[in-house]
């Protein structure tokens, strides 16, 4: 009986985990749509879905192309369960153009590109002391542009 139950329980658990993960992903999109996109105004959202569930200690990054003469808003939006996150915008040589740290957070950075260039946004979720509870939450990297 035990041998029969174990694979069944494993399958059930795997299925449940899959559903939780899928649900969490959908919540991430919903969170980004409802809480982050409105903060991009008056910039137009660039339509790229750059969002993931992150845990403390995890990083995310994205390469962005900024076209000359265009104005942009770069924004990092994290779910309150994670608290504030750290993020920076760096150029091709890793020179920091802008940085926001969790203890003095800034959620967005507005810039105008004088020349076309690629930069990278790096986000990392700070760890908070010793805890058995690992909170996972959505982090979205959003870009808006002025039409």
């Amino acid at each position, binding site marked *: 009986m035990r041998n029969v139950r174990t694979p069944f329980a494993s399958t059930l658990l795997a299925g449940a985990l899959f559903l939780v993960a899928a649900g969490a992903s959908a919540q991430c999109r919903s969170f980004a749509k409802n809480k982050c996109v409105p903060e991009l105004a008056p910039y137009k959202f660039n*339509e*790229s879905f750059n969002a993931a569930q992150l845990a403390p200690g995890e990083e995310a990054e994205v390469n962005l192309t900024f076209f000359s003469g265009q104005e942009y808003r770069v924004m990092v939006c994290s779910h309150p369960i994670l608290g504030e996150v750290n993020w920076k915008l760096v150029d091709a040589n890793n020179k920091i153009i*802008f940085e926001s740290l969790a203890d003095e957070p800034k959620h967005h950075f507005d810039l105008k590109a004088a*020349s076309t260039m690629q930069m990278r946004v790096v986000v990392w979720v700070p760890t908070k002391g010793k805890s058995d509870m690992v909170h996972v939450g959505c982090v979205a*990297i959003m870009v808006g542009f002025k039409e």
Partner: protein
Amino acid sequence: MDLYANSPHNPMTAMRSNNWPMLLAFLAVFSACGGEQPQQDQLQVENSEDSALVADRMKKTKNIFYNIPSPMETASLLKKAGASYNGKILNDVKNVDKYTAASKQALNLGIYGADLSYASVFKHTQESMFYTSCSKKLADRLGVSSVFNDSTLEAMERSQNDRDALLDIISETYWNVDGYLKENGRDNISALMIAGGWVEGLYIATQVARTNDSPELRQRIAEQHYSLKDLLDLIASYEVDEPALNGVKSDLEAIAALFSGEEATTAKETTVSTEGGVAVVGGGNAQSTLTDDQLTAIRDKVAAIRNTYIN
């Protein structure tokens, strides 16, 4: 009744018929895009045997995003560069029923999405509605109707006279489709859609440059090598042997070869100053441009590749 009388490929009619009831035109083209859904081929999807491979790929790329400028951003850049609107170069709405394979549907969802953005940014509302109908049809076939449905069409119809609201709905829909595909493990479909949109954006730019050539437009075309590199990185992140993705990758590599020299420029040190409260970031790479021969080669190559996607 000629159901295609108001097609974007009859621009004179489209221009003249601005006073026609929108709904009539919309219904006409939706009927044109209608008909029985053909039996479709299936794009390779992960099965239990592939799950370890997929998990490995997710582990490696989980937190790396590839941001490809959206069709809307590209169309907006073209407009700012002085490009004009030419509806004749866009994909014919009549083609929509040809796309029975999932890979073709995904590529052409991107292509019609780019056409939709181009028409909308240049305020050709009626054509926007035609391309929305075709995009929705392909989205339905790809199983993403939960995020691109009749309420989206109704919202667009209500906003047809409010360009900004219309652009917002289009952007949100594109984002929802992309996000939905990625959330549901269909990243390969998402990548094909993005690639189709990118190819169509470059096709439109190079075709418009035939009649509207300017240093600004050439610069914007030359700068596409940045997003092309990101697009190739995105596709390279899929370590699955997927014929459709492999084919698109080869196509994009062939285009990338024609941009040679653009990526080799040495970047100047980045500078940051402030202008009217906004940070101005300067330095970086030298301004991109293309020779006549390069522009012709890119135009011909992109047209040939795009032709294989839409037919």
